[in-house]
């Protein structure tokens, strides 16, 4: 009998009980998932990206199914930071959840303003900077598309955030050069990186022949994008082996989570699969733990980055 593996993992200063998180925007306020399991069992819960003011988001229909994935265009609907601090964050804390607060904005100042209010209120275990937001300065582009713009945002948030609270920059997979973007964010003060956000994409409705979701720009997520996401994590880890990474994109099973860990992520977030299976996060955690146990791995940290070992090196736990 193999002993139960130690599932704790480190993300810069933060220690999580285990590496499985719920991804930003895919876990509601936490309350919705809490109807299916105790959210304190997760390594962390990332919140929907919080903006300064309330946002109504984009018109419905906001979603269209794609092969092994979906294209979504929610448009950051949310109540704004004040209601978040008053209603949602305290609730997460009351449940014993570890809150990764995702922040968004239309410019470095708004991002920083949100981070500052978070700092004042306390309770965020980590701040994740969602860089896949349109940059009003660069027409049609997101902050994540221009490393220098992304860096400005990260620098502003890092400056406004509490010292002990790690700031992670969340990157897009369809960035010009994910590694260059990663480097720019780390240089600007990011304590770690979350990757990947949805990829740009759209469908055309076969009957109306109109873009779906409306407007012609949505985000593709789900298992369909997993190899792209794993590739981003792998390449970033190779370039920046010291920077802690949160990997995500299409995680559906414990074996998928193990893929991200081996590629170099220290924690793994589950997004779209929460929609398909409300217990996905705890199921994936259980499956991962079992896989590690079967391999005889003592600590989850032992498999982090395992895919980078030189050829011929021992496989962890084998």
């Amino acid at each position, binding site marked *: 009998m193999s002993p139960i593996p130690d599932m704790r993992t480190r993300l810069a200063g933060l220690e999580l009980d285990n590496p499985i998180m719920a991804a930003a*925007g*895919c*876990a*509601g*306020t936490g*309350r*919705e*998932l*809490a*109807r*299916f*399991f*105790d959210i304190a069992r997760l390594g962390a819960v990332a919140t*929907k990206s919080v903006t300064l*003011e*309330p*946002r*109504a*988001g*984009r*018109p*419905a*229909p*906001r*979603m269209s*199914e794609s*092969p*092994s*994935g*979906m294209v*979504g265009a*929610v448009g950051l*609907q*949310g*109540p*704004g930071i*004040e*209601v978040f601090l*008053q*209603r949602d964050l305290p609730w997460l804390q009351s449940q014993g959840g570890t809150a990764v607060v995702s922040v968004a904005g239309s410019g470095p100042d708004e991002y920083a303003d949100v981070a500052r209010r978070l700092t004042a209120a306390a309770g965020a275990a980590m701040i994740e900077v969602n860089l896949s937001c349109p940059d009003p300065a660069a027409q049609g582009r997101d902050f994540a598309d221009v490393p220098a713009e992304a860096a400005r945002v990260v620098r502003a948030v890092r400056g406004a955030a509490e010292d002990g609270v790690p700031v992670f920059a969340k990157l897009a997979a369809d960035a010009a050069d994910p590694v260059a973007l990663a480097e720019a964010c780390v240089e600007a003060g990011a304590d770690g990186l979350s990757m990947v956000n949805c990829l740009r994409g759209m469908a055309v409705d076969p009957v109306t022949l109109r873009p779906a979701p409306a407007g012609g720009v949505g985000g593709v997520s*789900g*298992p369909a994008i997993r190899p792209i996401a794993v590739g981003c994590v792998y390449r970033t880890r190779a370039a920046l082996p010291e920077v802690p990474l949160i990997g995500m994109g299409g995680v559906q099973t414990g074996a998928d989570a193990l893929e991200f860990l081996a590629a170099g992520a220290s924690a793994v977030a589950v997004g*779209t*699969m*929460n*929609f*398909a*299976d*409300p*217990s996905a996060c705890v199921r994936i955690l259980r499956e991962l733990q079992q896989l590690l146990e079967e391999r005889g791995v003592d600590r989850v940290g032992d498999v982090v980055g395992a895919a980078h070992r030189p050829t011929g090196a021992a496989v962890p736990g084998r």
Partner: protein
Amino acid sequence: MSDNGPVQTRSPVLTVRRVDAYHAITVVAPQIAERFRSGQFLSVGVGGEHSGMLLRRPFAIHDVKPDYGGTVEFLFAVRGPGTAWLAERRSQDLLDVVGPLGRPFPLPRDPVNCLLVGGGSGAAPLFPLAHALRRRGCRVDFVLGASSADRVFSAISARRIAETATFTTDDGSFGVRGRVTDALERVAADARSDVVYACGPMPMLGRVAGAAGRLDLPAQVAVEEAMGCGTGLCMSCVVPVVGEDGFTRMARACVDGPVFRAERVRFDDVGTIPFDALGAPGWKPWSDDPGAEGAPEREAG
């Protein structure tokens, strides 16, 4: 977690039947049956274990029975690949079912006269509602509409449960030619209805809401908006709804609904973000006091 919240089950299929243009599947799901209140729905994973179809399909719960510890029935029309796959299920296959989901129809305290209005397969949730109302001593009258005779939903059970049952079809192949709203006002007057319950396609609900408004009758509608998760996570099913505070919010049909008070739903603005909705582009916070922005219970799901 909570005892009256939804559960996720792997439920064996008991029966698959054809009912006119519809398929009816009954699954054994005691925990869903026991929690169910009329107006709620369930969602089903489709395509099997390695399916490329990721999103669950939502269906209204049409019937709940105590057999085998508790069974649940839903009816559906084949529309795309998900419902086509469901139509091929056989007895003993296992389905991944989550339910019951959403807010149920509020039931009147007193034995009042209830007018139940349904369109096409949207009529499904009205049947358990009718039974619940009858158990409370309410009078029930049905108005059911559809495009054609074979899409009129459970005409026979409607006749059996209700005091009166009126049918309309677009093509006149069954009942009165026309729309449910054409019959609604007459039936409401004849039956001295006190309250209206409706479900069906959005445009029909909009017309029912209008008619109920003109008749000064309170109305509850169960909306059908395309859903990504059914559990309140994905924010894809939003409908502009006016809150107690008078402000319009983009409410999630799956957890804030599917049942809403008809006059609260801005039917004409469905599929848009009304300019005056909370957080719409150009919208300005109306107060510096964060408390004033409210956090209505409904939005929290």
